């Protein structure tokens, strides 16, 4: 039974591919490629050594943009969440920048960093910074007062308080926030690569269309983006399942 449970999503995907292929075969001459053509496109990319190169390029930018945002936004957010006065001072600014789409920064990114990795990394950074800042601030607000009081009661030094109460208490929410934000980073990198660089999966999609309507490569790019997004999410989920975080899911 359990074997079948696992097989079910695979069967669903297979069925969808079949419907897709049949629909395309019934309408020859239609420009959208079927799954077989897309698979051919992926093989083509592999053969030219572009697939791996573009995936690595995109992941490289995401890693740097996301990591920079996390290293700056999380400590800052935790501190602001703890010192409410700081938060009240900075909050209007945060709420002002937050609704500006990271894509709106593209011209400025190119102006500052030129066409290249730095511009894309900057855009991902902008897209991740504010969600992570807010996640960290809220995580501090949501620490139950009893944990804080218990920490004070046992006479912890400020640094022990941070490592033994604050950090473990915010971890569950931070992990959820990081997972969602990594998804945002992956969205932003594709858009950024369409305009500000000459490599990566986003560039692949735009380039395939511009250079002769290779829609098999366009869809191949989309499929690969989806698959990698899925893998990234699975990776973040497995973080939650780590032994030292095991308590998170069963809290109550």
């Amino acid at each position, binding site marked *: 039974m359990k074997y079948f449970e696992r097989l079910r999503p695979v069967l669903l995907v297979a069925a969808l591919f079949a419907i897709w292929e049949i629909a395309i075969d019934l309408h020859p001459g239609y420009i959208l490629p079927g799954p077989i053509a897309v698979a051919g496109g992926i093989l083509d990319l592999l053969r030219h050594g572009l697939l791996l190169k573009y995936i690595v390029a995109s992941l490289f930018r995401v890693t740097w943009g996301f990591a920079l945002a996390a290293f700056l936004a999380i400590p800052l957010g935790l501190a602001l969440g703890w010192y409410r006065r700081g938060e009240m001072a900075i909050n209007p600014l945060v709420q002002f920048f937050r609704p500006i789409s990271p894509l709106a920064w593209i011209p400025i990114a190119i102006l500052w960093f030129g066409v290249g990795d730095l511009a894309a990394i900057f855009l991902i950074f902008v897209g991740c910074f504010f969600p992570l800042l807010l996640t960290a601030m809220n995580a501090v607000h949501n620490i139950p007062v009893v944990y804080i009081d218990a920490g004070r*009661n046992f006479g912890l030094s400020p640094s022990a308080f941070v490592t033994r109460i604050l950090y*473990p208490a915010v971890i569950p929410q931070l992990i959820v926030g990081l997972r969602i934000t990594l998804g945002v980073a992956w969205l932003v990198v594709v858009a950024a690569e369409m305009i500000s660089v000459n490599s990566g999966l986003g560039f692949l999609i735009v380039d395939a269309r511009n250079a002769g309507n290779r829609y098999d490569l366009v869809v191949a790019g989309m499929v690969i983006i989806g698959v990698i997004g899925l893998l990234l999410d699975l990776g973040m989920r497995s973080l939650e399942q780590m032994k030292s975080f095991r308590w998170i899911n069963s809290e109550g």
Partner: protein
Amino acid sequence: MAQTEVDIHGTQSAPKLSAEHLGMAYERDGQSMQVLEGINLDVADGEFVCLVGPSGCGKSTMLNAMAGFLSLTSGSVRIDGEVVTGPDPRRILVFQERGVFPWLTVEGNIGFGLSKLPRAERQQRIAHYVKTVRLEGFENSYPSDLSGGMKQRLQVARALAVNPDVLFLDEPFGALDSITRVIMRGELLRIWQSERRTIFFVTHDIDEAVQLADRVVVLSSRPSQIKQVLTIDMAHPRNISSTRYLELRDELLKQIGLAYEI
């Protein structure tokens, strides 16, 4: 003054815990609201004192002030003659709910306040208190795997492990079901009798107070003052159907202003 000085242990030693003219006022909507007023209380070393009173009267406020979590508007709290200025591991507060750390195992929670001890001593202390609160076999379990009663026992163990002078308990069994609550009272009495700590216990449950305490302090409604201090002159284990038990319980109900019948 309703306060009666009864030294149930028959010694003349200085009180472990003493509250002098405690006053506490909150600012709300620009108005000052007096919560506690002129409270004087001495608690002897090793004594078990329960604090009861109508809901919202300031029992928890008084407890938090005595444990150092709230600063007083007037008066002072002394432990062994030393004025309480803030929370301190020498007096541990046990919370009603969610007091244990979910990210630590049973052992981790009990050892939380023991990080400065050498490893061997810490392990020995943890083992002792695991046994004291009967959590053997759960040393490596997380709180989410424990029942409500076990979590409260764990919290008591974590508190006792740092060897505090005074244990403050804020309605510790209030969130438990009634059967578990009765069992927990027995457990707490057993622990208290073997460890002999001074216990200051807030409850809204009259029966709980009569079953546990050496003395029961009754607070009036706001601004709270001590209405009566009732000595429970019954040895443990107490027969809760005895005439004396019922008399004492009725006396407390009368003090709180509740009728004899529902």
